[in-house]
């Protein structure tokens, strides 16, 4: 540890030279994407304010649309809805997707329901993204953390109900978006509720073809109530319910009949509870997800199948920020969570008893960990930071039936107990007032997922193989580094990051010819096993340019390469992609033009059944203005996405299902109160 620290200092020094200047400490590896127009402005967040419009392309955008605009994030797409986020091409168990620090486990064995689908942007204040080297503060991971921060309600003594109503329509999927938000606050008490309804039909792709089974419907409702116990202490209760139904997955052989999440938490937030303590939050939470796959609407189904799944998680955490000295601060977290999963499959053949098996044999994961993020502003030029985390994780099969299933694979004792260690060091150096360089090195580990340990004949529609878990899998380990440079001028900000990951015991499915397929039509059986190693290299860049007050230009770019031990490309790696936006704001009117461009992806994984994906260029135009409607502040937004009606798909889209074509949207929002 000492040596790596010295090594780091040396390397950073070499890379950045020895110029000096003075600056503030910046949290370099965390990107916070604000989603809500700030109501109480305590700190200057002008940069973030500017980014709001960029990340929320239109006000009815879902979480996925917002995530898709972060250069670090790619989305694995199986349907219009339920896209699985990946941070720098790492996904699933390699990253944490948290809701306000809470763990939520999807209840679908086929990853149709990443935790992100159960949240609506109206519930959120911001999306926090931490990449690999520092992304494990909230949980052992090698790829980073996406934390969706839910809305907080400030307590005002207004004793008035205020809120907003939004209504939108999008032409490509003939989809409607309706949302209502209400706020009320009286002295020490405040409550905020929202309801969002989305109804989307099968959309038309570029060129006009309808994509069958791409429809969805959902209702999301949330309530946050807070009570100010005393000047420094806030008690907060949150509840989010999300009901989705008739959700099509064009790239999969089945759709989703319903997906229901119930998410509740109680938290205590303290501001400056002690002389050195800056913030302290303690939260207890529980959530349940039920997910039901359905093939009754599909033609030519060889055999009708039911695939229900459920997940149940509860946990608690306590997190605080302490100022040790004027130069040093430390964020500490201790957390525990317990997740139970079960999924089964029942197939029906006339004249025979139903065929029933567990696809996620009943299992439980208990996880407890402590983490620390220590930051030291050594002098006006140097800032050092270290993140350390330890996790004790135990997994077990919880029913006799589950144990019998896994015994078939030749494993008698499938329980696991692992101590996971994650550590990183970061050095940030101001070279000039306008130039800052930072370097991070990290060692990270992550636990194999329930699917990787205990999955039982899980069909993967992308490569056409049935997947079997391997209870003996070792944790994935990663050595990684990240170097970034940031130029900050009066009118311009440029940031580039270069990263490298070397992953040992990389978990991947390997064909095992000794098993016969379960799914009709599957090519074979793959068993999760550890490849000796894999590595990922990539670059991200973003540019913010504001030549004049009325004009904003934002551009992002990313490129990643991944290879396994034999030099073959890793699957699900997006090609070079760049998104650029120019926005002209004049008084209450804005006009925005965007381009979205990706090169062809030719570095494909044949083992994973990938094919080459051509490049594309998309053009979007957006506009909007604010006005008073019957005395209420009203926003009207409209625009055309995919203006050229390009027929395209991205490399991470399963089954090469084409994306929506030209889409005209309009959204009206009225604020009241």
């Amino acid at each position, binding site marked *: 540890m000492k040596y790596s620290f010295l090594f780091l200092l040396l390397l950073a020094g070499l890379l950045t030279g020895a110029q000096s200047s003075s600056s503030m400490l910046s949290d370099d590896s965390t990107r916070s994407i604000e989603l809500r127009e700030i109501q109480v402005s305590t700190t200057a967040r002008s940069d973030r304010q500017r980014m709001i419009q960029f990340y929320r392309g239109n006000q009815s955008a879902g979480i996925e649309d917002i995530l898709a605009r972060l250069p670090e994030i790619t989305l694995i797409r199986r349907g219009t809805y339920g896209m699985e986020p990946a941070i720098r091409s790492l996904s699933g168990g390699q990253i944490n997707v948290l809701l306000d620090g809470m763990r939520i486990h999807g209840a679908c064995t086929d990853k149709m329901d990443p935790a992100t689908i159960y949240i609506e942007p109206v519930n959120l204040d911001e999306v926090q993204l931490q990449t690999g080297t520092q992304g494990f503060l909230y949980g052992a991971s090698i790829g980073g953390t996406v934390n969706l921060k839910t809305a907080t309600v400030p307590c005002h003594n207004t004793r008035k109900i205020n809120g907003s109503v939004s209504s939108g329509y999008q032409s490509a999927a003939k989809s409607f978006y309706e949302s209502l938000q209400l706020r009320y606050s009286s002295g020490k008490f405040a409550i905020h509720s929202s309801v969002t309804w989305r109804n989307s039909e099968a959309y038309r792709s570029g060129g006009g073809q309808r994509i069958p089974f791409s429809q969805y419907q959902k209702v999301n409702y949330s309530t946050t109530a807070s009570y100010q116990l005393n000047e420094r202490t806030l008690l907060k209760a949150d509840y989010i319910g999300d009901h989705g139904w008739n959700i099509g997955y064009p790239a999969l052989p089945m759709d989703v009949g319903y997906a229901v999440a119930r998410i509740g938490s109680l938290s205590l937030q303290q501001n400056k509870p002690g002389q050195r303590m800056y913030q302290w939050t303690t939260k207890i939470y529980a959530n349940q997800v039920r997910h039901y796959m359905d093939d009754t609407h599909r033609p030519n189904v060889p055999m009708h199948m039911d695939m229900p799944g459920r997940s149940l998680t509860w946990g608690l955490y306590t997190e605080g920020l302490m100022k040790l000295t004027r130069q040093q601060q430390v964020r500490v977290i201790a957390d525990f969570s317990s997740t139970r999963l079960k999924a089964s499959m029942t197939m029906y*053949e006339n004249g*025979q008893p139903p065929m*029933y*098996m567990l696809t996620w044999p009943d299992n439980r994961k208990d996880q407890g960990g402590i983490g620390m993020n220590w930051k030291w502003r050594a002098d006006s030029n140097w800032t050092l930071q270290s993140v350390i985390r330890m996790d004790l994780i135990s997994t077990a099969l919880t029913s006799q039936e589950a144990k*019998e299933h896994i*015994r*078939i694979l030749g494993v008698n004792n499938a329980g696991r107990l692992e101590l996971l260690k994650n550590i990183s060091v970061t050095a940030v150096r101001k070279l000039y007032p306008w130039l800052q360089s930072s370097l991070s090195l990290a060692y990270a580990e992550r636990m194999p997922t329930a699917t990787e340990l205990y999955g039982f*004949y899980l069909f993967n529609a992308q490569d056409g193989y049935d997947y079997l878990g391997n209870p003996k899998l070792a944790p994935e380990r990663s050595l990684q580094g990240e170097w970034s440079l940031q130029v900050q001028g009066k009118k311009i900000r440029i940031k580039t990051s270069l990263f490298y990951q070397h992953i040992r015991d990389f978990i991947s499915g390997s064909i095992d010819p000794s098993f*016969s397929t379960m799914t009709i039509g599957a090519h074979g059986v793959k068993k999760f096993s550890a490849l000796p190693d894999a590595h990922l290299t990539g670059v991200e860049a973003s540019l913010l340019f504001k030549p004049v007050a009325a004009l904003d230009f934002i551009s992002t770019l990313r490129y990643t390469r991944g290879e396994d031990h034999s030099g073959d490309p890793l699957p699900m790696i997006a090609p070079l992609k760049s998104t650029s936006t120019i926005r002209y704001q004049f008084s209450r009117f804005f006009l925005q033009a965007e381009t979205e461009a990706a090169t062809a992806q030719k570095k494909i994984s044949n083992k994973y059944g990938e094919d080459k994906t051509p490049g594309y260029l998309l053009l979007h135009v957006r506009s909007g203005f604010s006005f008073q409607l019957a005395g209420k502040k009203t926003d009207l937004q409209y625009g055309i996405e995919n203006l050229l009606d390009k027929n395209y798909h991205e490399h991470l889209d399963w089954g090469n299902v084409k994306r929506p074509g030209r889409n005209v949207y309009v959204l009206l929002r009225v604020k009241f109160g």
Partner: protein
Amino acid sequence: MKKTACILLSLSVLSVCFLLTACSKDNADNNPTTGMTRISEGYAAGAATKVEIYSKQSLVNTGYNKFYIALYDSVSGNRVEEAHIHLTPVMDMGMMQHNAPFENPVSETASGHLFPCSVTFVMPSGSGNWTLEIEVHNHVTGKEGTLVLPITVTDPVIPRQQSFTASHNGAKYFISLIEPSSPRVGINDLELAIYKKESMDNWPADSSLTITMIPEMPSMGHSSPNNVNPVHTGNGHYRGKVNFTMTGLWRLNLDFMSGTSVADTTQSFDVQF
């Protein structure tokens, strides 16, 4: 005060538990045939012994049947636990008669008050009548006697016995599926009994065959992993493992070899649960 109450309560709970377990143990000891069906009963006249035949199945099926014989002194009603029992199953078809494979109790001392044995009824009743002749030598009294019990044998809905004429020697073999008797998802014991028909009254156990067993789900066309082919373990019994990855209808496909020559590759058993 509270503490004492707690201790008292837990003590009483413990003692009740103890009493309950003690009672259930006694019951099991008293009645070894709980859960079994009495197939038939009668008196072995010369031996002054009452004979009761029990089975874990409710009916006597074509194929291998495990029986448990209980003996009682016909005068005192006491259990007889030392005896020598010999079985002779007979199929009377009017024009002709034949026997069937059987296994006499291995020991002359009862195990758990009962004498386990088996009879493999190679065909159902109907075209003829089955009888089971039981010779009892009561070691307690020293008396010997015989009784003949009629047995009704029915074909189960899903056959548990198959037969084939072996291509390597032309002999007829009868294969019974003994296990899995209560199949479930997971690893199941697989047990087959194989008898060769030497003549109408000679049905010896076979130990000469090697078996390859591949389970299959006919409606899905898939198999299951890590099965263990049954191998001969004595007295015509072949034991292995069969794994079921889900409930439903499974077919156990069987290939029989004698050394390097093929005996038969056409047989299978269906298992449904």
